[in-house]
């Protein structure tokens, strides 16, 4: 780890809504969103990852094997308010599309911002999972989101 990162390292415990928790290291270091790419993943109806594209693997810092079968909340950064994800689930479980700006936690503790869109995968009238596509957000939207999320935590 570069020396300058050591100043802003936090070891924390992240608690998830399903009662599980994990220890994580969080660094105050942003990884820039890769130009021109979309981060794509799919989950089952419980949020378990069933597909991850190469951009997702590269940006998350996990291997594809580590991601598949894991709950998508492994990407959740502690700076994100729980209410944002409650809104996401409420929207997609009702069969609608959700858009939002999300700060994601990488395996190495650094973070990256995305503009995320999640839609239900409907086959023969039944929701069988969800597709999430993330793209590069503008700095102004990141600043607005940071300010908003601070008030919601």
């Amino acid at each position, binding site marked *: 780890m570069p020396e300058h990162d050591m100043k802003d390292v936090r070891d924390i415990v992240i608690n998830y809504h399903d009662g599980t928790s994990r220890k994580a290291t969080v660094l105050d270091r942003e990884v820039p*969103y*890769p*130009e*021109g*790419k*979309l981060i*794509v993943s*799919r989950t089952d109806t419980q949020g378990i990852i069933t597909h991850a*594209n*190469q*951009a997702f693997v590269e940006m998350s810092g996990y291997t594809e094997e580590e991601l598949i079968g894991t709950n998508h909340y492994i990407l959740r950064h502690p700076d994100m308010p729980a209410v944002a994800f409650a809104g996401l689930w409420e929207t997609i479980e009702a069969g609608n*599309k959700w*858009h939002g700006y999300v700060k994601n936690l990488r395996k190495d503790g650094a973070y990256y911002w995305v*503009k995320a*869109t*999640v*839609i239900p*995968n409907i*086959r023969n009238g039944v929701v069988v999972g969800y*597709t*999430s*596509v993330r*793209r*590069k*957000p*503008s*700095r*102004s*939207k990141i600043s607005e989101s940071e300010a908003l999320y601070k008030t919601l935590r």
Partner: protein
Amino acid sequence: MTLNLTVSPDFAPDHISGWFIFNTWLQRQLGTGVHLELYDCFDAQRQDIKSGKFDLVYANPFDASMLVRELGFKALVRPISKPDETIIATHKDSPLQCVEDLKPGAQLVATDDPDVNRIGMIMLEPADLDQTNTETTTVDSYVIVAKNVLNKNAEVGFFLKDAYDELSDLIKSQMKILVSSEISVVHHTLLLCPKLQKYAPKIQQRLVKMADDEKGRSVLESMNLLGWEVMTEEETEFMIDLIDTLLDE
């Protein structure tokens, strides 16, 4: 029976004859008449597709979404190693170095290609630009997009990557690329209408084997394709779901 075939109008003009050669090849393979109709305008083609004029459509990804979800078409095959990618380019002397250097009021030039324009607008989002604070000139072809960029009538142009790659070296040497998409999983597909689904296995099989013989390969070459691979229903649904996430409504 005659199959009515149409092709998304976003291929380079050099390959028009290739699609007519493909039409003849397909007729021989299927032992039935195939009538090819080409368009130079996406909207006119879309209206005719919606009115039920075509049985077989080589569609861009955004139209494929409409064909499957609204009209019950099924994807048979996709071209091998030919994802649809978008390039945003500017004049080589432009002070712009990246998309974020563009400001509200930016002048864009594009064709009416729906997938390139959508992906292009998504790649402008990091600059807080959208249709409400940019001005787009729509032209008929990517060569004209390039001319507008070179004449500085627009700050940037949107290109289908394939079309950009086929511009002359002289034109390309006078432009610079600000951003190029790397999406990989969005591509054209050949789709069959619901009433002719019984022919799907035969058409699919002949197309997948097309690159196996010399005649088939030369037809593919004239269309600038390497070959075809099967597109499963779930792969089609996945691509359409992905495209759905890129539409903001």
